[in-house]
């Protein structure tokens, strides 16, 4: 089992969620987060005075997947979130010791199956 965590542009979260649903993902976490990078700034204004912010809103998506689906999921995430501009975000993948579904008590692949 793997955990995929993707930090993406907020406005792409809706489309990505739909694509992941279509490929059979049964659950995921979607969180609004504030992110900082050294290279991304956005220009806004405050009462007519321009200001630039280096804290930007992004979405964080967490998915628990079986190993065989990993490659496909990464491709989908990249396909639907990448613009090529700075600020597209990052994806991390890590190993999971154990996953337990609290309702069904299913473990690992049984924990993430559609009920």
């Amino acid at each position, binding site marked *: 089992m793997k955990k995929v965590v993707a930090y993406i542009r907020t*406005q*792409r979260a*809706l*489309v990505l969620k*739909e694509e992941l649903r279509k490929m059979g993902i049964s659950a995921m976490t979607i969180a609004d987060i*504030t992110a900082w990078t050294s290279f991304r*700034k*956005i*220009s*806004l*204004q*405050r009462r007519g005075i*321009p*200001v*630039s*912010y*280096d*804290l930007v809103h992004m979405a964080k998506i967490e998915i628990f997947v079986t190993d065989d689906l990993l490659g496909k999921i990464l491709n989908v995430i990249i396909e639907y979130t990448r*613009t090529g501009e700075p600020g597209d975000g990052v994806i991390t993948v890590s190993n999971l010791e154990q996953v337990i579904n609290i309702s069904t008590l299913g473990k690992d692949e049984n924990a993430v199956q559609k009920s």
Partner: protein
Amino acid sequence: MIPALGFFEAGLLRSKNSLSTLMQTFSGLIILSILWFIIGFTLVYAPSPWGVIGGLKWIFFNGVPTSTSLDYAPNIPGTTFATYQMMFAVITPLLITGAFAERLKWDAFFVFIIAWSIFIYYPLAHWVWGKGWLAQLGVYDFAGGIVIHTSAGMGSLAAALVLGRRKNFGPDIMVPHNIPLAVIGAAMLWFGWFGFNAGSALTAGPLASNALLTSQIASATAGMVWLVLSWKKSKKPSITGVITGAIAGLAGVTPAAGYISPQSAFFLGIILGFASYYGILLFKQKLRIDDALDVSSVHGLTGIIGALAIGLAASTVINPSGPNGLLYGNPSQLGIQALGVAVAVVLGFGGTIIIMKIINAVIGLRVKEDEEELGLDATQHGEREYGDEWGASA
């Protein structure tokens, strides 16, 4: 009432576009007040030789009497009347903000409301209210069912068609981000509407009292219809449904408020509730026209029905200076009202298409795709609606 419209809409839209709609309504109040002061009042209410458009006698409010009244409103000073009518002129183009929400460029909006006022609202208001040709034919409109709600409602349908659907049109994007805000807006609209409808009596007396009561009761029965229909359909009564129904009732009773009895208003409200509910199902669900906040149904269809209700149920017992309708022995009034409605439909729908096509050709109407995704607040106004307390300037 006008900022209330903004709250109502902003609450029903996604947060990333809430400031843009508040900006459109609030700045619309500013822009259109100025326009009314400079040219609007005179184009609508100054005498005209052929009843087509008012002359320039009162340009910049010059010569509008403060100490004496105009013959439109014998009981109040001329400037009071002119300022009161400003509110109608301001809110009418801004009703359409609900249709083109979440995707119209700011500069296109700016040009649109000015053009729409000059080419659609001012002429139509002159024809019906400024002793123009429709008034001479006997078309009646107490507080703006034809002039305001039919024209803006059909304009909304046209605007939605020209502009096209929002990106990813579907239930996922129709998320009211702050329903309490929408309820505050609806509450303030309802209250403001008493000024709109009862105020159109232009004097405090039996007529204003009748308009006050008809407005309240039609709004209540229309809201009741929505309450029951949403309850039946979703198994739970809906607060966004109830406020929409109440607004639909207020819009629909507007033209008839000073001509029909409270008992007629009771039944009119029921019809308005059904019409707006099924209008939304038709336009949005079935035809998939993205009139974002359903102005075409909540204002357009109801405005048409209310204007026709004058031809059906108006009574000179209620208003001696109004007409009798079909039920009171004057069947021809229904035809005259239908003519007024038809003119407003054609001008509102056709005129809006022409104005939007021209703006599209010159400066463009729609924001870029990535701007639409990011939201109009940040991309059109450089401001964010909530929570930038971490964002120190760098």
